[in-house]
């Protein structure tokens, strides 16, 4: 493959990579704040306020990565965009309704009259749960090649639950990092519980993907690929182990290692995502449409790429600024 010769080859590849990175950043960032929403019912009212305070300054920018990812799919692979989204019509609608409810609940729960707060809290949880389940369902359907049978439906329901657990796990790790005392102790318990869901989910997808597609099976289980790829599952197992051990040491009086679980969780997400990306490349619609067949005109992609080269580092810069401004333990959210 001549990466820097023919623009009809390297442009779609670049855009697939950009899209992959956006999806990865999205599932890590919105993953943790959706997870915090899913954990809502297990917290007291004061803890709920603190949980929202820990994600309040970030959630909006986190969600923007989804818009970028879907935007890149739309602009770089227009034919795939239509095929994927019409095949996922109902889960997309459920996700959107979840995102709507959750996004407005951030604002309404503190601005509406006090008696309404409980309702908005409930809607915040319901919205986060709907969004997580719908995204997990879509992942499952995608892994199953967007087919609609009882089997794929059942598998997608399982991935829906596992992704939700995975989100709440990374959400709990975020809370360990951002909170103190009782809430932090609770978050440690939540994270420990979440690990099992994560491991089962990773296992299910890892087993199902090669079984559904002989092509993916061959990509993983032939010589010498199997050796190059072996670090992926091995590193994942090591990360799970590290994560477990770091949780055993928390909470502690000096708050040492409070950052560790979140870092290991991110590493796990990256590894899992890398595995999926390797499996599906070069297809954008599994087994039907490759990124090269679905790509837009090279002229249009070039126009976007020129902008992206300047703009994406800037986005990274000011995102980092925002996380730096709100570093440390979460504090009560005030407009002054």
């Amino acid at each position: 493959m001549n990466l820097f010769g023919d623009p009809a080859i390297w442009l779609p590849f670049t855009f697939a990579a950009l899209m992959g990175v956006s999806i990865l950043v999205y599932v890590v960032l919105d993953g943790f704040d959706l997870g915090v929403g899913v954990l809502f019912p297990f917290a007291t009212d004061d803890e709920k306020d603190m949980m929202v305070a820990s994600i309040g300054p970030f959630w909006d920018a986190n969600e923007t990565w989804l818009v970028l990812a879907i935007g890149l799919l739309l602009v770089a692979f227009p034919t795939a965009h239509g095929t994927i989204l019409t095949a996922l019509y109902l889960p997309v609608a459920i996700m959107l309704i979840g995102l709507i409810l959750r996004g407005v609940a951030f604002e309404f729960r503190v601005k509406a009259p006090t008696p309404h707060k409980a309702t908005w809290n409930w809607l915040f949880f319901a919205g986060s749960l709907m969004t997580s389940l719908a995204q997990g369902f879509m992942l499952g359907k995608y892994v199953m090649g967007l087919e609609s049978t009882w089997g794929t439906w059942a598998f997608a329901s399982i991935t829906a639950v596992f992704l939700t657990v995975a989100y709440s796990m990374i959400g709990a790790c975020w809370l360990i990092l951002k909170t103190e005392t009782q809430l932090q102790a609770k978050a440690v318990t939540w994270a420990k519980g979440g690990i099992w869901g994560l491991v089962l989910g990773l296992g299910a997808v890892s087993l199902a993907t090669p079984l559904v597609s002989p092509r993916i099976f061959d990509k993983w289980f032939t010589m010498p690929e199997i050796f190059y790829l072996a670090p992926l599952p091995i590193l994942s197992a090591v990360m799970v182990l590290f994560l477990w051990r770091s949780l055993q040491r928390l909470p502690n009086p000096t708050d040492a290692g409070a950052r560790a679980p979140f870092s290991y969780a991110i590493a796990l997400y990256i590894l899992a995502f890398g595995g999926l990306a390797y499996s599906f490349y070069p297809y954008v619609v599994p087994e039907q449409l490759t990124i090269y067949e679905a790509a837009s005109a090279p002229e249009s992609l070039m126009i976007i790429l020129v902008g992206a080269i300047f703009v994406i580092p800037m986005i990274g810069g000011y995102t980092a600024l925002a996380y730096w401004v709100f570093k440390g333990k979460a504090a009560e959210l005030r407009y002054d």
Partner: protein
Amino acid sequence: MDTLMLSRIQFGANISFHILFPTITIALGWVLLFFKLRYNATGNVRWMEAYRFWVKVFALSFAMGVVSGITMSFQFGTNWPGFMETVGNIAGPLLAYEVMTAFFLEAVFLGIMLFGFSRVPGWLHTLATFLVAFGTSMSAFWIIVLNSWMHTPQGFEMREGVAFATNWFEIIFNPSMPYRFTHMMLASGLTVAFLLAGLSAFRWLLGDRSNGVRVTLKTGVYMGALLIPVQIFMGDMHGLNTLEYQPQKVAAMEGNWETQSNVPLLLFAIPDEEARENRMEVGIPNMASIILKHKADGVVPGLNDFVAEDGTVMHPPVAPVFWSFRIMVGTGFAMLFLSWAAAFLMLRKKRGPEGIPTFMYYAMVPMAFSGWVATLAGWYTTEIGRQPWLVQGVLTTEMAVADVPAPFVGTTLAAYLSIYALLLAAYVGVLFFLARKGVDGDVPRPRTPLSGQAIAREIPAE
């Protein structure tokens, strides 16, 4: 109903709901920057009070805009795949630039603007306010570029049914873009002006005479009074541009069936598409010709020119365009009368908000959302007015619709409609609740900003 009709209703409902909130945030971002800069310059706490109240309205409106905007970006794919498949090479880069230059900017700096006041230096907070306002306007710019291009497409060629860009300068600066963009920005300014005036009048009527209420009331009234004549002028220019590029739309707006001279300006009529004539016409003789052609015997195109030999109607449905245009113009004139009268009374002998009689405060409260009425009516005029085209002369709406079962679309439509109704009621309710809460004295004093120079102090009103 079939998938096409349900999808059209769904997208229409979505975009109608969505547009309400950017219409507020685009101009409100700049108004907040104005409040912040006045505060920085004078150190007067009343500007900070104004900022603190209206930043809540901004945050709420922004969240509503974000979530409904995400919904729209997905609906391109779920309901209108033909759109991206045909003109994706042009729409794609424009949408990508919106996300890259605007969305991230506003979303990231919003957090600092809302919650960073006591965490960052004063200058950085002011900069964050500016960047949010700038990002919101950039977002509007890219969306309106795309929308205008769909009305007046140029700078492309069709190859095997797919549009390819040939000249990006022509695509971005397409003939209707400058008019549409200015018209929309002014619409946002007016919406915010009347919202400022309306909510402040509500607080005034409840007995709040604080300086924060005074300055926002004045800002709203003066802003409305200044912008409305400019908007009427711009609207007229936009109309002339539409006459040049989409004459069938103007014919529907005027309710004019035959191409003829001496066309009257209809104040009232019931367009009857079956009979292809108007019933119960009341009009000003020659006026439409004078407005559109600047002479009494100017020839104005009629709807019957847009019916093909085989009877296919290639002009928009007449009644909705005709009526929404009249609602927009009528609301505009109500804005003109109210804001000019109030501004005149406030300016007279420098009497400020005290100079306005009570009944005018009562008039301002329902006018708080007049900007929404005018914006939606204008939106329907221009968007229904381009039917049956999605992209004028290139792609019809019918060609773009997804092959999704009608019951699916019906189900999601019902879900969206009920959620939108709930949220709209909650939004308006919370706005008035916040206004009432301010009156009850539940306004903690602002903290000293981190920069330390601008220490808040109360300065009596002039």
